């Protein structure tokens, strides 16, 4: 049971522990301890990773195939070429850190879930096991298996503990994500059979030079398959409904982490294995994601419900991730991974706070609330910091990621027309203004100005657990914002193999 398998299965064992936990009260503590241990373990794994990776970060620049650390590899379905193959490189490491933080704060944020709390925490932890599995597995079959494990608990979580039209949105969400994974299945099977070598191992498949026209149809299939989860433009409609009716921790986890699976998969599988296809389709998807970015932010201006407001903003930010992936150059990729990390933290914070505000005012309609900062200063300040991070204020993680993506988009690559890329980049940079407009407008109405509803006067400020949740997330955002080399050094060596394969 190597350390990486431990990373994947600690949440699962905690889920088992939760199921057999004596009293509903202790359920929260068991899951908190579980995720706490996981956070500490992730911390040590990161340190370990840095020692291992720093040795050869220089020669990473010429490398053709991804260099994996702490590898665990043994045969599973030997006759079918399937292995239990875990490894970690820069990109997966950053994503594992993100997920670990989000699940820890997610458990903290759902501290007062009473109704069937055992099943709630168990399902939440199973979902996170799937997510960790995806980030750490380098065998396509294992990747796909964990990918679907991550998608399914969503139905029950939203269906049972959600609010509003929960069945409808839970069903819509699950079905659209399953359609995405259907496309993915076609792609993976096509890769497996067209590669000639009888294996699902990602690293070996990368060495295969797939024929050009094969790549031209497999790349969009896989990219759109992941794009559906990463809120690509026409397939994003599940995200506003899904997040609006999901409970706090679920939408924190979903928007924060699950939507990153889309970006991660697009980068790790679509671009890495099918470079020709990427060159063929890059510009098209860049255009699509530009719509995604502008459309998401413009759509958020008129939203009345706080959760729809955040859902649209995360559609726009996830569009930026896919935009970064579609730019096909060093800065674009780095920016995409950074944006995945920073947006994960940001949306986690946002949805956590919305849950806390909703817990107090029992309404999420923006016009109905006003002047809350007087009554709950901590939440107000945290909300503002989250908002400023989302509009890309420097010294917060959002800016670092966005600047990389815009710089990448602007520098272009040698396969697409640079002017087209530049026009699209300028269009997407406009989103920083539109984001500023809707963030300030929304938060201004909710938190500043006189108190509208008189019985909002006696609302209480954040409790200790809530302070801890928001504190951790804000601290991470500041760390990444102020000293981004923490992440950039981790991610950059892992980007080069993907890039070299493109230039090959």
């Amino acid at each position, binding site marked *: 049971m190597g350390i990486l398998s431990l990373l994947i299965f600690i949440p699962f064992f905690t889920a088992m522990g939760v199921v057999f936990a004596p009293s509903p009260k202790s359920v929260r503590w068991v899951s908190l301890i579980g995720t706490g241990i996981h956070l500490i373990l992730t911390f040590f794994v990161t340190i370990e990773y840095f020692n291992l990776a720093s040795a050869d970060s220089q020669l990473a620049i010429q490398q053709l195939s991804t260099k994996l650390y702490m590898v665990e590899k043994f045969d599973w*379905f030997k006759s079918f070429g399937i292995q239990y193959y875990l490894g970690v490189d820069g990109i997966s490491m950053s994503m594992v850190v993100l997920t670990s933080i989000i699940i820890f704060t997610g458990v903290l944020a759902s501290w007062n879930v009473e109704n069937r709390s055992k099943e709630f925490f168990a399902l939440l932890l199973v979902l996170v096991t799937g997510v960790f599995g995806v980030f750490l597995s380098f065998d396509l079959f294992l990747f796909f*298996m964990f990918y679907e494990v991550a998608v*399914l608990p969503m139905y*029950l979580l939203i269906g049972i503990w959600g609010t509003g039209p929960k069945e409808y949105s839970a*069903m819509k969400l699950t079905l659209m994500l399953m359609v995405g994974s259907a496309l993915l299945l076609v792609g993976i099977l*096509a890769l497996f059979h067209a590669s000639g070598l009888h294996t699902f191992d990602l690293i070996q498949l990368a060495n295969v030079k797939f024929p050009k026209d094969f790549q031209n149809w497999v790349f969009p299939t896989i990219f759109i398959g992941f794009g559906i989860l990463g809120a690509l433009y026409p397939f994003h409609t599940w995200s506003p409904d899904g997040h609006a009716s999901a409970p706090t921790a679920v939408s924190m986890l979903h928007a924060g982490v699950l939507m990153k699976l889309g970006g991660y998969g697009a980068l790790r599988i679509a671009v890495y294995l099918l470079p020709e296809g990427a060159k063929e389709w890059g510009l098209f998807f860049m255009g699509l994601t530009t719509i995604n970015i502008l459309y998401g932010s413009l759509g958020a201006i008129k939203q009345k419900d706080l959760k729809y407001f955040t859902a649209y903003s995360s559609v726009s930010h996830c569009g930026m991730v896919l935009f970064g992936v579609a730019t096909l150059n060093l800065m674009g990729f780095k920016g995409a991974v950074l944006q995945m990390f920073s947006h994960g933290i940001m949306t986690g914070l946002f949805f956590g706070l919305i849950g806390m505000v909703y817990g107090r005012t029992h309404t999420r309609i923006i016009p109905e609330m006003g002047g809350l900062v007087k009554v709950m200063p901590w939440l107000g300040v945290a909300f503002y910091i989250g908002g400023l991070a989302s509009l890309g204020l420097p010294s917060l993680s959002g800016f670092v990621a966005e600047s990389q993506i815009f710089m990448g988009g602007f520098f272009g690559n040698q396969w697409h027309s640079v002017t087209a890329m530049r026009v699209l980049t300028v269009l997407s940079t406009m989103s920083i203004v539109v984001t500023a407009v809707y963030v300030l407008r929304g938060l201004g109405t909710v938190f500043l100005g006189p108190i509208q509803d008189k019985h909002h006067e006696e609302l209480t400020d954040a409790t200790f657990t809530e302070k801890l949740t928001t504190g951790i997330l804000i601290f991470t955002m500041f760390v990444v914002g102020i000293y981004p080399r923490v992440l950039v050094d981790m991610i950059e060596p892992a980007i080069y193999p993907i890039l070299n394969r493109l230039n090959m």
Partner: protein
Amino acid sequence: MNLSLELMAPEIIVLATGFLILISDLFQKSKNENKASSILAIVGIMLAACSGLFLTDAPKETLGGRFGLDQLDLILKEILLLSAGLVIMISPAAMKEKSEQKITHFSEFFTVILFTLSGMMFLVSSRDLVTLYVSLELATIPLFALTAWTKTDKSGEAGVKYLIMGAIGSAFLLYGLGFIYSITGDLGLKAIQTTLTASQLTNPSLYLAGALILAGVGFKLTLFPFHMWAPDAYQGAPTPITAFLSVASKGTGLILAIQLLLKVMGFLLQPFVFGIAILATLTMTLGNLVAVRQNNLKRFMAYSSISQAGYLLMGFMTTKPEGLTAMVFYMLVYALTNLAAFGVLIVHIHQTGQEDITSLRGISKANPLLALSLMIALFGLAGIPPLAGFVGKFFLFSIAAQVGYYWLVAVAALNSTVSLYYYLRLVRQMYIEPENPQSQKLQISPMSILGLGIATVGSVVAGLIPYIYDGILATSSQWLQVWLKI
């Protein structure tokens, strides 16, 4: 004259148990006491299964080439024994309650099931058309009676429909076999296969025979145009028999298809892969689409099993070992998952008397474990990891991809998404809908719990441990080596 009858040990044990139950019924004092006969039946099946394990050496034939046994046949027999055993374990739950759905005459019930089971096992190892046809009839005709066992309007109607369609099916099959006979002259499967490979393929009567045989097989496997009987028969029959139909009878259909289509006409399949793809698409799409609006639990399971037949058919698209393995593996996984689902449904339907989906509301509150195992079974059928259904479906879809039919993989994947929709409809009734007040605690006998447990655990574990798949792959590549020389 060494009649190496030990090859037939499993079948003989099963028949012997059948007779034993029949005789033991004479000394039964109280008429509604089914404990003894069901335990006897299960012991018999277990004995047969163990005896099968000792016959694992090289393939052999006996009784003048009429009865053959090799590794793959053994695996198929074990699967049949497993499904029949689970059905028998679970069915007592349907015999106790008061509703008119009650199954009477338990010992006859078990005897008939065991005899049908022996018919299925004989079908597996039959090596000539006569034995094949007779064992097929032995495996099908008693099912007509079992379907009408509870003698209500519904089961009577189901029985009649199943009977007539069954009769037509077997008539068509016989007619087809007649034309095969006209081409080859010799009834032995081996001989037929050699003459067919020799004879030129453009003989239209061969295609007439093929169409007729496909009708017979299609009836058994509930493929698209020939599936009409299944929903009514599944709904009308008593629930244990519906389970038996959906698992064992489908297994027999698969075995018949393997015997006739793969073993005899394996090399012919190559030009018809597109036809098979179309048939598979039609079957699964029909099964899935209609199941979306089903409100009766048994009819729902009927359509779900029709769609599963559609997935199974994809295995025929290649004569490479992966195809056959994927089918056999999926049959095992499907049997386990389906029986896990039926286990809970049998208990629920026969104790609450309602078959409507909405009657499942509140089951998760009253009896959480039952609800959980039904949910696991449904997710298994939908093909959600880490359950075995996912692994099975993945291997099946990879066959279609191997042959280059990527559009079929996409269609199948979308179909399984639609299937997820209607399986989730059930999960929604169980977990999300508000509980109806009078959902009471269902009592379930320890044996049924054992059966349910085996099925549910099996449906999870079969996907994780690799040895099952690898074992089946080894045997099927060896089998193909023997029969089709690939």
